[in-house]
């Protein structure tokens, strides 16, 4: 019974994130459009795009290798699994112990690894520029987020997301300087990782500025659909990660009743909406920065995270 229940909740989780991701992106786009006093695309537009892309033929570059065709599936699978391991409305996920926070980040890392390879496979200058910038950004973003994780984990005494969520939900935490810093660092990294303004602009195809789009320039049809879907999943993942670490209230405890699950789901929606709104506002209120300003941007995150780890002793002794 319990088993079934867990399996169901896990499966529900996976489906939920899969279904929720495009909606989230659509929502962000919509809000941004409205902030710019435009009508903007309808909320469900991303779904339509995906379906259309899936139906289309794939156009492969002449010297694209088998790896090029395999990579979209790898990326999608990796991101999906990672996203489904992050607690959303309930923290008692069946398989959450199979990968802790570090593993989830590493999983995204492998996805990025293959994406960068995909950029180089066809052998155009675009792909190269994208991949090289991507790895440069990642080389700063990954340590930043890992150290953030250290800070959080040292406070919560665990790298298990569900445990962290419970700890954060409990009253034991109190207000801590290091947590605030960790939050800021995490947000910066999230922006960078999802290629949002000011680091990258998902909506542009201007060679000099694009990173993510340059890598996937050669993709089309179902491959492109998968890659888009996985980036949407990634956005969802980060938002729900922030949500479950820093605003864990309302999430359903393990072995919760259906009611509490419902409550959890509701609060989760609210959280997501809030985050999305914040993101949209932020993106509209700031300009894209030069590529070589990004290191400084991320360096700040790195420093904040490091400070967070060190300051936790101070605030720990408070």
């Amino acid at each position, binding site marked *: 019974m319990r088993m079934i229940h867990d399996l169901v909740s896990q499966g529900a989780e996976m489906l939920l994130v899969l279904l929720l991701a495009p909606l989230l992106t659509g929502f962000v786009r919509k809000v941004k459009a409205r902030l710019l006093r435009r009508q903007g695309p309808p909320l469900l537009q991303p779904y339509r795009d995906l379906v259309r892309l899936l139906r289309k033929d794939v156009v492969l570059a002449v010297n694209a290798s088998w790896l090029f065709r395999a990579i979209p599936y790898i990326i999608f699978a990796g991101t999906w699994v990672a996203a489904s391991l992050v607690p959303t409305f309930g923290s008692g996920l069946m398989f959450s112990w199979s990968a802790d926070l570090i593993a989830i980040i590493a999983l995204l*890392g492998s996805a990025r690894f293959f994406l960068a390879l995909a950029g180089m496979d066809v052998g155009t200058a675009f792909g190269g520029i994208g991949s090289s*910038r991507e790895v440069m950004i990642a080389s700063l973003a990954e340590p930043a987020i890992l150290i953030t994780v250290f800070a959080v984990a040292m406070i919560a005494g*665990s790298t298990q997301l569900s445990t962290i969520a419970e700890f954060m939900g409990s009253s034991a935490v109190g207000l801590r300087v290091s947590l605030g810093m960790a939050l800021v660092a995490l947000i910066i990294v999230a922006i960078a990782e999802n290629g949002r303004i000011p680091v990258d602009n998902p909506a542009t195809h201007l060679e000099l500025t694009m990173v993510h789009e340059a890598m996937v320039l050669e993709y089309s049809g179902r491959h492109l659909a998968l890659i888009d879907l996985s980036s949407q999943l990634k956005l969802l993942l980060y938002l729900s990660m922030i949500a479950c670490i820093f605003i864990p209230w309302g999430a359903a405890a393990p072995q919760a009743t259906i009611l509490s699950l419902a409550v959890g789901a509701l609060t989760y929606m609210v959280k997501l909406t809030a985050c999305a709104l914040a993101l949209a506002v932020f993106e509209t209120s700031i300009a894209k920065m030069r590529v070589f300003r990004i290191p400084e941007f991320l360096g700040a995150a790195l420093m904040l995270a490091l400070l967070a780890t060190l300051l936790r002793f101070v605030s720990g002794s408070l």
Partner: protein
Amino acid sequence: MIVLALACVAVLLALSPLAIALAAQPRGSGLIYGASFIISLALCTIALIDLLAPARPVFSLVLPIGLPWLGAHFRIDALSAFFLAVVNFGGAAASLFALGYGRHEEEPARVLPFYPAYLAAMNIVVMAHDAFTFLVAWEFMSLASWALVVSHHRDVENIRAGYVYLLMASFGTLALLLAFGVLAGAGGHYDFDSIRATPLTPLLSGAVLLAALLGAGSKAGLVPLHAWLPLAHPAAPSHVSGLMSGVMTKVAVYGFVRIVFDLLGPPEWWWSIVLLAIGGPSATLGVLYALMQRDIKRVLAYSTIENIGIIFVGLGLALAFKAEGMAWVAALAFTAALLHVLNHAAFKSLLFFGAGSLLNATGERDMEKLGGLIHRMPQTAAAMLIGCVAISALPPFNGFVSEWLTFQAILLSPQLPSWGLKLIIPAVGGLLALAAALAAACFVKLYGISFLGRARSAAASEAKEVDAFSQVTLFALAAFCLVAGTLPGLFIDALAPVAKTMVGNSMPQQAGLQWLTIVPIAESRSSYNGLLLFAFVLLSGSIAALAIHRLASDRFRRAPAWDCGFPDPDPVIQYTASSFSQPIRRVFGSTIFAAREIGEMPPPGSNVPARFVVDMHDPIWEALYAPIGKAIGFATERINVLQFLTIRRYLTLVFVALIVLLVVLAL
């Protein structure tokens, strides 16, 4: 047991004179490598039996050779058994690979005789149980590998590499000699048992630690003693490079562990600071150096420095926790380090063999002359891909597991009493994270430039897939990387006796846990299940593929790549190795390597080609090695006049000497 092992080693030693005779024959290399493959396998099994046998007895033996009144002591305890396994795992792989690769050797007489001797030497080092035998084997190992490094002696660079290598190796040996000199004390008891029996004052043991760090570190390639490594490892034939990077550096780690964890007695807490302060920067600097290279084998050599850094960080953590009496965490860190030893041996060998295959197929080590090889050599490309993912510490492969365990140990640092460690360890953790991210970048570059894209040279466009032996080796190693990544629990349990003997405790038994998860401390704290993760990814990936191909379209057509309206671009417009690392060079290199980009754009209309030069400096070489060289040169030049004096002046020397001595008497 040990008799058997020594017998195998003896056979290996006997092989090398045989090889001198066989080198001329066409079948010679096959015979030698085949034999060494079989023997290595045998030794590996012996070691595994020793390691895994429940309640294993400790085998030891004394032969009447070496120092007359000492004899040669040999012993296979848990530590030796583990490293014996690693050595022969690498040895077997290298021999198997060489069965194919060795056939392309143009001067086999310069490789074959030294290869078995080299293997034998490494085996003896890990089995030796007295200082003299240990040092003899240690230095003999360097000697044999030196001979292999200079085997392609027509290239002056290789000779120079060999020279630097042998010099540094002897330096290390002499450092170890001093270490043992202190350990043995005035009595001159060189066998390890009596060394353990004699305690040392804190000052002396500190000296031993430093000497051991110099000795073993110079062999392992810790920054700043690494200078020889990126020169020597690429110079050797690729299967030997694999051995040197994958195995010999581990033998050096063994030497360090043996001295510091076993012979030296209880550690002081500040020792760990020394290790962390060297290990962390080694990791980051090593991979940064690697990112700046174009030569594929040199990239791999530098990345070895990075991984050695990670291992020493693990050892440093183990020392810290051991010193503070938290044996269970020490066990975690120590196990992580040893696991990384094994993993690195696996994927570094794999990568070096892959590089060797490229070298055979194209004759090129410069990545900017390769490209598009995934089409020409699909098998090699597939195996190499796994190697690259594994060494980038990405799940579900083995590199990630050891790094994950190290991180878990780091996360326990707040429980340490000393504030220095509390503050340093997270910073070191940051360095490791940085190193991991950079490693990923580095291997995206390595793989993307040399295997993906379009061929940048004729050699690359006509490359042929390599022979069966090489492919088998590559895939075997790749499979190992996956297994070790998905079933780490087995390996952790196998390491339990080693940790038990070295740090006095071992990680909790992993075998019983559900779904073969690994749990370093407690499940509530952290757990990782590579198998399940792998299964999930595989499952969801294939489900997605199946669903899409079923429900949506599965058709595709070929078309030229998007070219911005400039059709048929030349392959040279692709990103090259150096342009790929340009952003990272801008971020890190400008400070560390004083990297400057000099671009000269001719005025419009003039047909002078535009020039773009990047000039970089090796800070460590210029700060440490160059001055020493200068000093020696200066001293020798100064003192050399003594060769050219007149007889009268020489007489004056004698006269003065006489007077001085007489004055000494008179006073």
